[in-house]
């Protein structure tokens, strides 16, 4: 299992969701993707997108105005 990172800082929704969607297409099932965001809208949008597309948000953490998601495909 490998870890991948996606930088979505300073992007506003839905761009972080679109980037996450596209990045997940390129990784293998079971791998994880770390997504770093600054838009508070992602706190709702990324977990919702993951739920409807059957991906798992393993963790989400807010650190210094940044939100870091770890998503398992």
């Amino acid at each position, binding site marked *: 299992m490998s870890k991948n990172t996606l930088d979505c800082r*300073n992007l*506003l*929704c*839905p*761009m972080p*969701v*679109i980037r996450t*969607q596209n990045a997940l297409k390129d990784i293998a099932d079971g791998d994880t993707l770390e997504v770093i965001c*600054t*838009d*508070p*809208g992602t*706190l*709702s*949008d990324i977990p*919702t*997108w993951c*739920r*409807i*597309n059957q991906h798992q948000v393993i963790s989400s953490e807010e650190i210094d*105005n940044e939100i870091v998601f770890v998503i398992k495909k």
Partner: protein
Amino acid sequence: MTQDISSQDANNSPKQRKAVALISGGLDSLLAAKVVQEQGIHVEGINFYTGFCVEGHTHAIRKKDKDKQKRNNSLWVAEQLGIKLHIIDISEEYKDIVLNPKHGYGANLNPCLDCKIFMVNQAQAWAWAEENGFDFIITGEVIGQRPKSQRKETMPIIARESGADDRLLRPLCAKNLMPTLPEREGWVNREELYDFSGRSRKPQFELAKKFGFEDFAQPAGGCCFLTDANYSKKLADLWDARGERRYELDDIMLLKVGRHIRPKKNFKLIVSREEGENNFLRGYKKQFTSIHTVSHGGPLTLLDGEFDKDDIRLAAQIAARYSGGKNAEQVTVQVENYNGTSYVMDVPPMPADEVKQEWHV
């Protein structure tokens, strides 16, 4: 599309038909997808991001909105329906629609008819739709709902010019239109579709109630900023000041933020109105010259256009007028160039009555 219309799959079982629904996040597209889903069709959603989507960038900017529920309504709709949603960034391709609409604009800079043709075409052309055996497209259009794009005479134009032809089904008003392929082939039962027309929303509300949908989005003016008069005015001002009709994604983001004040044709100020906008504009300091007040609390201001030292001084006086030092004799400001160099200067804040009304874009 080139999919066959045979009624059985390779195992001679009834073929599972698939439809792609254009999901805006509003009530009509939710209902249209639900109506077809109820008939046993496999539905997946597509949502297009044009850069002008109300769903997108605004909800995160202003701090005063922080207590409001933040959700993307297209995602919410998909979750209500239990369908997958594919969000496609078309902001670059969409420029040509905004700048050169073949069918013209609506009341503001909204190219609704060209937009709908483009989106249906995008759905049609989308490679995987064909690869994955999608049979037809669903939209939530209703005859007479919108003055420009949703008229009975424009519906065939959308179907024809998008290339979708009669694989474009509008479940909410299908009974007012000629039967489409999905109806003629019996993939969907025409009798269970609807005959909505006109601007009244009552039939949609009743159908929403029947399906048990509550808390759905009702954005005034639809889901696009281009239908908003104030927003269109700012976009027209941008084109006028530049002497050409063009924009970048950052331009159209910034039109939604702050006070836009154009004291001279060659430049304008974008003055943040509160902390959330301050934080947002800070992300643009490497692209724009910025001004912030040092001696007093105040907004972050970006300068857009071409300007000389006198212009910067004028801008600093205006920025100071919106700071905590607006009644002080002098306010110290820091001017920071996009390349990182900076200097400070003292300016008298411009009196409120000298900030001319016509400067406000």
